[in-house]
């Protein structure tokens, strides 16, 4: 890339400078500090911290619940987006606004709200308990909280893509003999795939780092329902700063790896459509 070339957009240099500076100050610098701090332990020390069964269990719980939540959100989010774009309902505008509520709600509030709903002595919790399902204070509860906070990401990613989707494509599929399901599976969903994938990534990333809404309902039992973020706080409360940063760096690296993988996948999906000879 050469910057000497004349560009159509004005202020390219200024924009580039601002972007790099902002990214450095807001993102890279704190992360560098984090890595430096954990460096105090040395590689061997870090591995020792991370290899503790309790830490490994926390990572497993966090990633599995986040993955489950993101997958559930894809199904729910696409359905909600479908309803908001295609559905006919007098309260559509209201529902559209409510979708954003988890964005706006302080996470502690949603945590308490979910606990109040799902705790064994609460209405829904009791009903579920009678069916032999305990949600609160288990990984299922963690997943529920993550679904709650991640839903808007999928809805808001898929909604515009679905609104842009030409209705004639579905009509064409139908005129060629496709049933509603065939048209959905072979035409609509493949065309929405990039948007769905990006919603999935956002919901997944958000769930990995979620703290406030999860801790109330998780029960935080070591080895069973303790998430990584909580473990970091616990370490900090015990003044084990190096241990806390070691876990934080590992979480950071793993999240980054996941997101880069999904982005690469997304690029492949996108390329298939825009392929140019």
């Amino acid at each position, binding site marked *: 890339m050469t910057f000497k070339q004349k560009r159509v957009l004005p202020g390219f240099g200024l924009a580039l400078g601002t972007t790099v500076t902002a990214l450095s100050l807001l993102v890279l610098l704190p992360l560098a500090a984090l890595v430096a701090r954990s460096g105090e332990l040395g590689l061997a020390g870090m591995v020792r911290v991370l290899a503790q069964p309790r830490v490994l269990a926390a990572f497993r719980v966090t990633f599995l619940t986040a993955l489950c939540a993101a997958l559930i959100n894809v199904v729910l989010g696409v359905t909600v987006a479908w309803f908001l774009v295609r559905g006919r309902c007098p309260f559509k505008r209201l529902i559209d606004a409510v979708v954003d509520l988890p964005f706006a709600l302080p996470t502690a509030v949603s945590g308490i709200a979910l606990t109040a709903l799902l705790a064994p002595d609460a209405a829904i919790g009791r009903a579920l308990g009678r069916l032999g399902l305990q949600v609160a204070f288990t990984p299922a509860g963690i997943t529920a909280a993550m679904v709650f906070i991640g839903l808007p990401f999928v809805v808001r990613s898929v909604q515009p893509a679905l609104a842009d989707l030409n209705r004639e494509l579905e009509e064409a599929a139908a005129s*060629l003999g*496709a049933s509603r399901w065939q048209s959905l599976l072979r035409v609509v969903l493949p065309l929405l795939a990039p948007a769905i994938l990006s919603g999935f990534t956002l919901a997944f990333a958000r769930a990995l780092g979620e703290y406030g809404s999860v801790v109330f309902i998780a029960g935080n039992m070591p080895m069973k329902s303790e998430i990584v973020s909580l473990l970091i706080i616990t370490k900090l409360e015990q003044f084990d700063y190096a241990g806390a940063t070691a876990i934080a760096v590992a979480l950071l690296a793993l999240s980054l790896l996941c997101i880069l993988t999904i982005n690469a996948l997304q690029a492949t999906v996108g390329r298939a*459509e825009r392929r140019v000879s």
Partner: protein
Amino acid sequence: MSISIHQVSKTFGAYTALDDISLEIPSGELTALLGPSGSGKTTLLRIVAGLETADPDGSGRILFDGAPVTESPVNRRRVGFVFQHYALFRHMTVFENIAFGLRVKPRGERPLRDEIRERVHALLKLVQLEQLAQRYPSQLSGGQRQRIALARALAIQPRVLLLDEPFGALDAQVRTELRRWLRHLHDTIHVTSIFVTHDQEEALEVADRIVVMNKGRIEQTGTPDEVFQNPASEFVMKFLGDVNVFHGRVHNERPVFTGDSSEDGSVRLLVRPHDLAVLPQPGPGISIPARVYRVMTAGALVKIELLDGQNRLVQVQVPHETYRTASVHAGQQVYLAPKESRLYGQSSERLEYVI
């Protein structure tokens, strides 16, 4: 496969898109639904396809070869539908686009892989785009996309082929080329086809029969020759090509055109530009005084623009030979004599006067 349309009406809220339409489309013909936008032609086509339903008052019916299809949904109707903007699946190759209709067939009817490949290649050959099988729609030109869309529609061996403004999104040259090609294709495969257009030239050139529509009703049905030479109404005459309208009044039981009557005159004379003779002196019949405004000699015919007594534009087209002998120039005062014309009264009723 013949198509019968019986008493089909369609309203959107307070708006009547189709008003009690009945129409017979003979098997194997290429029929054009011609009309301005809002005339209901596309709505009628979509109802035939099953993409839209007629008003549920019970009387509207669509029959293919005498068998009612009104109840069968679009995916069971086996109609080929071609959209103005192609509606190709952009995430599939050309090959997969054409194969789509075969792949979604129920398991029992679905052809084998090799059969599908053969069928797709045969269709690509038919539309003369064999080399593009592995391309994506975004890599094709507009004309190529529309031909692929046609091949895709033909893959299911449709009972009828329906085309909604198939050339509407193409530029002029491709459009002419493609409509000639469509006519040729129809002569090869003979599938009963209806195409919608607002372009009278397209309809006149391509179709076996033309159905002229206006405001949700059928104005006239006939061969291109019939509708052009013998328009059933003032609307049809105006819609099928350029027309000059002269306003006049009736005097002593005879229409009089002086070229300066206002537009509320009681009779209107409609004359096509090539049916007007330009004379230096008033002739024996109707002679309307006018002044030459502009002469355009580039083209197959010489186009002369004139202004009548009320400064309304009049267009005349004459062959180059006539123009050379007539010596017409801008600013000249001349008289216009209609050779072929039609006279209409105040409420668009046809009048028969001896002129």
